[in-house]
């Protein structure tokens, strides 16, 4: 499936580049909106699609079990439905808040809430002051993606988000302690590809390290901001 999405992302980026030449603000705006909508649609699919599907199927099952006189099992399924729905609601609320976060600090809070909510012990140690709007925008997408990936793909119990600033180099690291099978090559989806593109735009460096859990690290020149 990644192949499919990758193509879509590519052509979007090309479209944007083409229109930039024409200096057509409206079209730039339009394309950016469409691209963003696609991203959100994907997020939504992942966050809510599975949950709602599970709810539909489990409640159907519960109904049938009750009808067949297997009340105890039916009751167990119902209990799970209500638990899943509560979780989905809190996930929805967090997603919405994340989309609406206006400062980096708010965003970091939302993201670490999401991790903690999933039972992942999370350590945040970031200095995100004095960054240009462009860098901030890139960093918020990168952070959101890295955290979403931990929630979706890792079996981590701990996560760390931290920044380091030294010799005019700004480093952001998002690290989890999940098990990543070494055999399984990391295939870039839209998410990691998006991070790569943004870091490239800022003339920075982007590293993924899976030697201990999953680590995403980016480095930017402070003056390049």
């Amino acid at each position, binding site marked *: 499936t990644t192949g499919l999405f990758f193509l879509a992302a590519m052509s979007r980026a090309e479209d944007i580049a083409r229109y930039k030449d024409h200096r057509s603000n409206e079209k730039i705006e339009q394309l950016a909106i469409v691209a963003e909508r696609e991203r959100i649609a994907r997020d939504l*699919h992942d966050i809510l699609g599975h949950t709602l599907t*599970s709810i*539909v*199927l489990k409640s*159907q099952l519960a109904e*049938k079990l009750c009808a067949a006189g297997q009340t105890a099992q039916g009751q167990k399924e119902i209990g799970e439905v209500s638990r899943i729905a509560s979780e989905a609601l809190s996930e929805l609320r967090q997603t919405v808040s994340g989309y609406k976060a206006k400062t980096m600090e708010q965003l970091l809070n939302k993201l670490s809430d999401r991790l903690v909510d999933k039972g992942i012990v999370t350590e945040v140690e970031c200095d995100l002051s004095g960054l240009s709007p462009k860098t901030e925008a890139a960093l918020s997408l990168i952070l959101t993606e890295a955290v979403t990936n931990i929630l979706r793909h890792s079996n981590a119990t701990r996560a760390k988000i931290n920044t380091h600033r030294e010799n005019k180099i700004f480093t952001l690291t998002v690290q989890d302690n999940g098990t990543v099978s070494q055999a399984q090559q990391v295939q870039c989806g839209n998410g990691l590809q998006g991070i790569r593109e943004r870091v490239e735009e800022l003339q920075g460096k982007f590293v993924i390290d899976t030697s201990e859990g999953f680590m995403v690290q980016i480095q930017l020149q402070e003056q390049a901001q």
Partner: protein
Amino acid sequence: MINVLLAEDQSMVRGALAALLNMEENIRVVAQVEDGKAALEYLNRTHSETDAIDIVLTDIEMPNITGIELAEVLAEKFPELRTVIVTTFGRAGYIRRALAAGVYGFILKDAPSEILAEVLYKAMAGKKTIDPELAIAALDDKDPLSDK
């Protein structure tokens, strides 16, 4: 009795689907696997000897080998098997590719289980079913694979 192999990566969905189908009188979920690769491994191991499976019921978005890819391989390697696809969202190009691979059904995962059962009975009788909501979504589809 229709014997079904179920491929779905979300364990909660997989478990509920299997339980629902097993409550149908003439349907039996013989095996459950978590992706297309495991489905192929299962069939390679058992199918030629036992002819145990009639229908492969598969999700689309799964790691390793997707449901669409699975349908394509099955059409070639096990043409006597019938593939039915269940999905949450009809994405661009999926329906067309699935139909090209000769699947017997393309329906929503959250459809009432009676409908799902009906689709399986129809598939056994050689009839194809496409969910109308997904069919509408496919009308103005551009296939991202052929349309660069």
